[in-house]
């Protein structure tokens, strides 16, 4: 029986293990505070929030979402805790709602583990408040009760935490905002929208449906099996542009809502349409698509033989791009199925073992042991079954990867791919660039190329800091800095190599010259716009020139006078690499850098920071938006990237040149020669 609470009303709780479900119309942060008898939070360790999601007896989501499920086990809460307050807050940032008044009234429900609602409460009457205490669970006469609070705070989390007596309220509130923003920023950009044919489960479907269905790549799957949902959705016009699995409204496990909608694979016009800078590729759209390779009909009961390029697209490149994204999604989903099954098996076994313990009969003879044995056997059986399914899917994906990897063009290929030895300077920019590999612990062998669209939508941040290095073996920060610069150079070489001559210009700021060794291949071959800028004067000079350029292009585009740019104006894309930030930067230079980060991407000026965020800690929160706006990459394997469908933490590994390989030298020499002599 559900009690629909009104503000101030309370309700007894008979169970200790509960779930608190929150739904709001937009992504919000959910957290919880613990307080003592007098209602005071005793310290920051008494607050569960996205940065510290797990406390004894309490678990909250790691990111902002429109729906949350918080897990509560009141038996496990420390004895000194007398009250658990559930709080909701709006994520901060540009373009986000400033008060709950602009959202639908948030709904919170306390439910049992089986989903039965115990009590629910709709928080109405909020206006400019950006944080609210929704419910509190409190001890009363040996048991627990829930009370509907609905107390909002216009001063946000900081005010809310202050009100509960936390001295470090402001720092913690800032920390929470930070953790949320990181959660939003760490997501891999959303995938391209799928077309009716792009559905990746078709291979499995085809094998199940029989050979006759897998013949035509374009229409055959449409009305069949799982191939049709997107076609149907387009008919209703209800699909969001963000991709099939992201309805925009958000969902706990969904993609980060800050992700800009990806453009359709047929390159959309950039914001500078009408200007002299045209990044689109008319040829790509005008070429009629050659027939894609298709998987031969599968033997009944056998998965179809994988074929490289078995996806939709106007060119082989686009088809491979879509195929890689398809493999990424398939791996995310099949792993989600496996993890969900294992979680369930664990919970069930735990519950069954608990039952055995509490059953007095089990103390007699071997009954208890037998029951425990049965519970464990059931667990093993289910996990084995789930593993079998996962292994089957992994084998299929691995077979696909085996044919896809060798077929990849240079921009998508690993540095050890032979395609790089046959490298020559391209005549047009590729759709996307491989920045590294992604994998999950369940499938260590299977690497998914991490492809990002070109031109870059966000700048890059190669993190030379120690935080979050997953294996901890790179304790030496000097080593990390060197590795960061090396991976930055590998990314730079790749960026230079995949752009046609004269379409990509790289400026480097290396104030102290600490990156000189890593930068040597770039400097020696002469592919940079000039020698790396050193010292404060060099920093000021490069930043000044790029700022002026951004101003100029912006004015021209906004004034609709794109033709009035000076003759001979360099229309190529610009990338500014900053090593050792903030060394050599004065306040003016920092302001200019932030300006470039904000305004640059729209006019083709991008940033690559090779930095340890700690070095710039002195600037305080001033630089937070800068870091947040960049895509963070690590020089060592690190699990900080989330997929846009399920939100697994994927381990990222940078695309590095194999040791002792001459491929970088070879490629850069080609690029340099081409620049001097013009395209052949």
């Amino acid at each position, binding site marked *: 029986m559900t009690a629909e609470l009104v503000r101030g009303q309370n309700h007894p709780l008979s169970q200790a293990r509960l779930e608190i*479900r929150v739904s709001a119309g937009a992504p919000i942060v959910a957290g919880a505070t613990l307080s003592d008898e007098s209602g005071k939070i005793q310290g920051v360790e008494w607050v569960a929030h996205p940065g510290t999601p797990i406390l004894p007896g309490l678990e909250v989501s790691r990111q902002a979402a429109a729906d949350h499920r918080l897990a509560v086990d009141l038996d496990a809460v420390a004895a000194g805790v007398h009250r658990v307050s559930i709080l909701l807050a709006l994520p901060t940032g540009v373009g986000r709602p400033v008060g709950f008044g602009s959202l639908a009234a948030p709904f919170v429900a306390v439910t049992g583990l089986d989903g039965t609602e115990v009590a629910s409460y709709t928080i109405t009457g909020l206006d400019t408040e950006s944080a609210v205490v929704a419910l509190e669970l409190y001890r009363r006469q040996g048991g627990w009760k829930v009370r509907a609070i609905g107390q909002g705070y216009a001063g946000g989390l900081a005010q809310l935490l202050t009100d509960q007596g936390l001295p470090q309220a402001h720092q913690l509130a800032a920390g929470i905002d930070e953790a949320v923003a990181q959660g939003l920023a760490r997501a891999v950009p959303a995938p391209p929208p799928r077309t009716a044919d792009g559905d990746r489960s078709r291979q499995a479907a085809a094998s199940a449906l029989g050979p006759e269905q897998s013949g035509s790549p374009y229409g055959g799957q449409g009305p069949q099996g799982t191939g049709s949902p997107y076609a149907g959705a387009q008919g209703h016009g209800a699909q969001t542009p963000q991709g099939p699995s992201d309805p925009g409204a958000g969902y706990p496990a969904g993609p980060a809502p800050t992700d800009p909608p990806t453009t359709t694979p047929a390159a959309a016009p950039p914001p500078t349409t009408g200007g002299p800078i045209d990044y689109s590729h008319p040829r790509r759209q005008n070429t009629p698509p050659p027939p894609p390779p298709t998987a031969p009909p599968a033997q009944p009961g056998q998965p179809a033989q994988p074929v490289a390029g078995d996806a939709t697209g106007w060119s082989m490149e686009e088809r491979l791009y879509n195929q890689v994204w398809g493999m990424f999604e398939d791996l995310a989903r099949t792993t989600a199925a496996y993890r969900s099954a294992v979680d369930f098996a664990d919970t069930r076994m735990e519950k069954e073992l608990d039952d055995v313990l509490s059953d007095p009969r089990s103390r007699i003879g071997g009954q208890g042991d037998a029951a425990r044995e049965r519970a464990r056997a059931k667990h093993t059986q289910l996990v084995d079954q789930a593993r079998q399914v996962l292994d089957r899917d992994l084998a299929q994906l691995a077979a696909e990867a085996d044919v896809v990897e060798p077929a990849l063009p240079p921009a998508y290929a690993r540095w050890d791919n032979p395609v790089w030895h046959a490298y020559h300077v391209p005549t047009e920019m590729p759709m996307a660039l491989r920045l590294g590999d992604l994998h999950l612990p369940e499938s260590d062998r299977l690497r998914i190329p991490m492809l990002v669209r070109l031109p870059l939508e966000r700048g890059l941040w190669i993190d030379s800091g120690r935080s979050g290095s997953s294996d901890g073996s790179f304790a030496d920060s000097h080593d990390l800095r060197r590795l960061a610069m090396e991976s930055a150079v590998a990314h730079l070489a790749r960026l230079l190599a995949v752009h046609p001559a004269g379409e990509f210009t790289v400026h480097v700021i290396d104030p102290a010259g600490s990156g000189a060794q890593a930068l040597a291949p770039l400097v020696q071959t002469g592919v940079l716009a000039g020698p790396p800028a050193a010292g404060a004067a060099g920093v000021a000079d490069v930043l000044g020139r790029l700022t002026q350029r951004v101003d100029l292009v912006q004015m021209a585009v906004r004034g609709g006078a794109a033709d009035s740019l000076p003759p001979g104006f360099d229309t190529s894309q610009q990338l500014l690499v900053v090593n050792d930030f903030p060394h050599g930067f004065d306040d003016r230079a920092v302001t200019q850098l932030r300006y470039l980060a904000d305004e640059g991407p729209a006019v083709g000026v991008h940033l690559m920071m090779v930095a340890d965020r700690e070095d710039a800690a002195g600037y305080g929160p001033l630089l937070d938006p800068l870091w947040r706006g960049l895509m963070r990459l690590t020089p060592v394997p690190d699990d900080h990237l989330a997929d846009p469908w399920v939100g697994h933490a994927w381990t990222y590994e940078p695309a590095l040149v194999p040791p002792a390989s001459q491929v970088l030298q070879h490629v850069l020499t080609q690029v340099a020669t081409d620049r001097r002599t013009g395209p052949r």
Partner: protein
Amino acid sequence: MTKGQAISLQKNDGGSLTAVRMGLGWQAAPRRGLFGSRTREIDLDASAVLFADKQPVDVVFFRHLVSDDGSVRHTGDNLVGGVGQGGDDEAILVDLSRVPVHIDQIIFTVNSFTGQTFQEVQNAFCRLVDETNGQELARYTLAGGGAYTAQIMAKVHRVGAGWNMTALGAPANGRTFQDLMPAILPAL
């Protein structure tokens, strides 16, 4: 099909059903107004809840269109219903061969998000279709269905190595599937 009737999703030729679709179609009821233009829009929503041993594991509905494992897919929210062509306005597709091993029941529900009862909806129906051959397995007419805002339609559950479907047709009230949980649990 009638309430409570169970059918096996094994095909006659011995193969078992691999993909089913739950389709939902409706039209808003005409409402008297001066110019007849005040037809109120009605938003019905189809949802599917995946259960493992009576515990909800995942839900597919208009805010979460694909189950995390990818086996259940919603074609997208339709806010106003159809123009009376009789086609499905919302559909949920289930690839039974890809449903995770621990999921043993999938419950399909329909609810009225805008709050109108089924009495106010015209030509509303809900059906389950074998996706492999388009054959309709079950069909309910919701229109004139009484003063309810929701219905627990049917469940598809594991039996041995295959799947069975049971028509439930239990009326309930609620705006989204969350409100229906108490009504769903007895049907498990």
